[in-house]
C-alpha cells in the first residue's frame, strides 16, 4: 500500500511540474477532461483503502484471526 501511495504522490508531483510549464488551452482541456477524473479516482480510492484497512486492523486486533 505504501508503494501505491508513493506512486500516487509521484504522479501528482509530475503533473504539478508539467502544469507549471504547460498553460495553454489544451492544458486546461487535458486537466478538465483527463487529469481531474484520474486525480479524483486516486483520491477516493486512497481514502476508501485507508478506511477499510483501519477497520480491518481494529477487527483483527479484537478478534485475533488465525
Amino acid at each position, binding site marked *: *500500500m505504501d*508503494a*501505491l501511495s508513493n*506512486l*500516487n504522490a*509521484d*504522479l501528482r508531483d*509530475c*503533473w504539478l*511540474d*508539467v502544469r507549471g*510549464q*504547460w498553460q*495553454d*488551452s*489544451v492544458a*486546461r*482541456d*487535458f486537466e478538465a*477532461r*483527463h*487529469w481531474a*477524473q*484520474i486525480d479524483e*479516482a*486516486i483520491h*477516493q*480510492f486512497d481514502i*476508501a*483503502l485507508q*478506511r*477499510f*484497512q483501519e*477497520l*480491518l486492523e*481494529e*477487527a*483483527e486486533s*479484537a*478478534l*485475533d*484471526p*488465525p
Partner: protein
Amino acid sequence: MDPMRAQSDVELEALVSLERGLAIYGHRASGEFGEIVAGLDSRLNALRAVETQAATALDRLRDACEDCSEEWDDAPTEELANAEVQYSEIRRRLSEIEGEYLSFCGLASNFSSILGQNVPAAQSFLRAKIEQLRNYRAVQTPGAPSGAVSALAPTLPNAERKADAKLVPLDSAQIMELRGIELPPGFEWVSLSDLDLQRELEGVAGPADFKHVPYGEMRVGFERLRSQVLPLLNVTPGATSDRFRELDVNDSVPFADGLQRVFEAFFGQQDYIYFVRRPDGSLDLINGRHRVFLARELGWAAVPARVRR
C-alpha cells in the same frame, strides 16, 4: 535561442515526462492494486473464518447446555453466555466491515477502470499534443522537412471546404472595421504593404502549394475569422480560447470543426503568424506564409500577428 522555440522545448519535455509518468503509473499501480485487493480479500476471509468458527463453537455450547440442563446443575451456562456475547461482537464487527467492503469495492472498481481506460486515454491525448509540438518544431527548423501542421491550422466542416469557391475581396470599410478590432494581448495588425511579399511568399503561388492545409479549407478559416471570431473579440475584448470552446460545446461542434480551432490557429500559442522586425524596420515573416498569401488573395490589407522586435 528563439524564446518561442525554448518555450516549446520546455513544454515538449514536460509533456513527454508526464506521458511517461502516466505509463509507469498505469503499469505499476495496476500491479499494486491487484496485490492490495488480494491481500485485503485474504484478511477479510480470515475474519469470516473467525465468525464461522465462533458460530460452530456457539452451536456446540448451545447443544451442550440443552443436553445438560435437564440432568446436571453444572451446565456451561456462563460459558454459553460469554460465547453469545463474543459471537455478537464478532458479528457486529464483521457486519461493519462487510458494509465498508461493499463501498470499497465500488471505489476500487472505479479506480481499476481509471487505470484501464482513463490513464491510457490521457496518454493518448498527450501523445497527440507531443506529436503536434514536434511537428511545430519541425516546421520552425530551417531546412527541416515541413511536417504535418494541419492540426494547428484552421479547419472547417466538410461542407464548407470548397477549394474552388469564389473569392470575395474585402472592401475598404470592411478592412477598416477589421483593423479597429482589438486583438488578444501580444498580437497586432501587420500591414501587408509593409512586407516584401515577393520575397516572403516565394514558393507559394497558388492552391497547389497548400500541401498541409488545403487552400479552400484555409480560405474558409479566414472567412470565419472575419465573420465570427473577430466580431466576438470586438464585442468581448479579452475573450480567450476557452470562450470559443464554450461556443463550440454549446453548438455540439467538435474541435476540428469549431471556432476554437480557428482562434487557436491565429491566436493560440503554437501556430500564429509571426514576424521579426529587423533593426532597419523591415519585417521578416517567420511563420504563416500561406496565411499571408491567402490574406492577400482575399483582399485583407493586414493580418493579425505577433511581431518580435
